[in-house]
Structure formats: C-alpha cells, structure tokens
C-alpha cells in the first residue's frame, strides 16, 4: 500500500517557549512592583554610557539594578558597577541577542521586591533582539547621531518592537551634521506616534527629561496595576 500524505493542523508559535517565560517574568516583575526597561541598539550607540549615567543618577532617589548582555566580556558590568547599583552580566557566548530564559537565569536569587527599576541592556544588534520578548515594560531603541538618519528605514522591525526612540550622542549633532528633521521623519514613518527623546550621556543634555519620563511611565504602570 502506498503511503498516504495528510495535513495536521498545529498553529504553534515557534518562539512559544520564549513567550511563556516572558509572560512569567512580566507577572513576576508586576508582582514585585519593579518597572523593567530594556535597551536595544547597534553596537556602539551608547547603551552602556547611557545606562551608567542613568543608574548613577537614579540610584540617588530610587532602588535600581541592571542586567547587561554581551557576547564575550564582562567589561560593561564593571563599568556599570561604578554607579554603585547592583549589576549582573549575562555573557551570551555566540548568541546575538538576549532571550527571556537568560533573564530568568540571571535573576536567580535576586530579591526584586526591593527594586523600583530594573534595566536590561541587550546585545548590540539591530536585528535579532526584535524577535524576543523579555517581559519588559518598556523597550528603548537607541540610535546615535553618528550612525545616520536612515537607521529606522534600514531596521524597521526593531523600531516596531520598541516603545520609545532615543537619539543619543546629541552633543555631536553639529559636528556630524545630523539632520534631526529627517531622523524624526524616518522614525515616524516606520512607527507612527513613537515617542522620541534626545540625550547626551556626555554633556547630560536631555538626561533629566529622560529620568522624568521613566519615572512618569513607572508611576503610570503602578497606577494601572493598583486600579
């Protein structure tokens, strides 16, 4: 008898395991009252510098901590530790992005109840992190003025996976003849209505506004949670 071919309906998300873990994380963060902010960008856009600045300033008024993903070194965690906030490094090896399970493992033994903010710095990569939910409340995508105004058009998927765009190294704007109007136009083209903030970790331009923004988003999330 000849073999018979038939179709079986499956309808399963390929990343269902990641999605399940991300959901568990989101619930855990919610229960602990910690607001989780992740950062994605290309390598060298200034994630670590911004985080160093943010942790140092927020540490004075809130309880903050960070997880930082990197392919090979623990340099970033060492840099961030100068802020005196608790920091853990996730070394991903050859993996080019963070996955929810890596966050879960890195958080083992950490009491989240004592925290107001947890920052998660993804591996520098504008492609792969887009596919993975990490259970965060807010995802920031960074683009630096040195990278060019068309980054959003080249990587629309990552901009679509993020909630807020940060234009970094804004102190270099004049030097590199960065066209702000074009950058805003491109971001809005791929993600209409996206909030855009300009910052410089070096000159502190826009940093206070960023901290106020994060505090208000956290307050908003808590208000929703307790209503």
């Amino acid at each position: 008898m000849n073999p018979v071919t038939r179709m079986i309906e499956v309808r399963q998300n390929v990343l269902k395991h990641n999605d399940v873990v991300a959901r568990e994380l989101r619930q855990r963060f919610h229960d602990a009252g910690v607001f989780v902010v992740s950062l994605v960008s290309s390598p060298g856009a200034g994630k670590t510098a911004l985080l160093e600045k943010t942790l140092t300033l927020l540490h004075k008024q809130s309880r903050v901590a960070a997880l930082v993903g990197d392919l090979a070194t623990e340099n970033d965690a060492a840099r961030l530790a100068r802020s005196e906030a608790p920091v853990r490094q996730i070394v991903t090896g050859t993996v080019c992005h963070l996955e929810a399970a890596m966050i879960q493992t890195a958080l083992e033994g950490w009491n989240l109840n004592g925290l107001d903010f947890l920052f998660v710095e993804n591996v520098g990569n504008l492609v792969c992190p887009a596919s993975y939910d990490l259970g965060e409340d807010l995802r920031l995508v960074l683009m630096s003025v040195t990278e060019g105004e068309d980054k959003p058009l080249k990587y629309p998927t990552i901009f679509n996976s993020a909630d807020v765009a940060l234009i970094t190294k804004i102190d270099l704007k004049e030097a590199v003849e960065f066209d702000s109007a074009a950058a805003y136009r491109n971001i809005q083209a791929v993600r209409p209505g996206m909030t855009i903030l300009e910052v410089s970790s070096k000159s502190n331009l826009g940093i206070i506004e960023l901290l106020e923004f994060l505090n208000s988003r956290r307050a908003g999330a808590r208000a929703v949670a307790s209503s």
Partner: protein
Amino acid sequence: MHELSIAMSIVELATEESDRRGGVQIKAVHLRLGQLSGVVKAALLSSYEMACEDTPLAGSQLLVEEVSVLVFCPECNAQRPVHSTQMFTCSECGTPTGEVVQGKELMVVALEVEE
C-alpha cells in the same frame, strides 16, 4: 543572524508534535512568516536544512508563507495594508498608523505527515 536558532526551534516543535502522534514521518512543515517577525526567509531556509540533520526531520521541507503587514486604520475604521515597512501609512487613505494587526507571525501552522 539568529535564523539557525529559530530553525532549531521549528525542528524541536515539529518533533514534539510527531512524537505526540506516535512518531509519524514529517514530510513538510508549513510556516507563516510575518514581514515584521525579524526573520529572513532565505537565511531560515538554509538554516533549516542544517537544523534537520541527524533528526527525524532530515529530508523534510520547510514551506514558508510570507505574511504582509496589516494595520488598523482609524480613518477607514478597517484593517489595511501599509505602503511599505518603511512607510507605515494606510495604503487606502494615507493616514499614518502604527497599530499592527498582522505581520509579526512566526508560526508553524501545519505539518504534512506520511502514514
């Protein structure tokens, strides 16, 4: 480049489904792949072959159905295609809209099995 790890997840998922059905032989895996899934079809197809090696899925085919982006247009009060992934405006009326309702899929929808 995370297509290999995605391909391995597909193989794992399909193997589990096969096991649940008494180890049926899988000839093909049907996948819905959204334009905003962050996964590149060509890279996924070549990774799939690699991921299948030495598994019960060796020799099986990955059949990819690409899914375009649909947004909800508040002006038309309907789901509409966008001009392009570089221009999220309603293809009918031109209203900018970021409310994606389709296009992020990365889903195994069906398996072709031989019995």
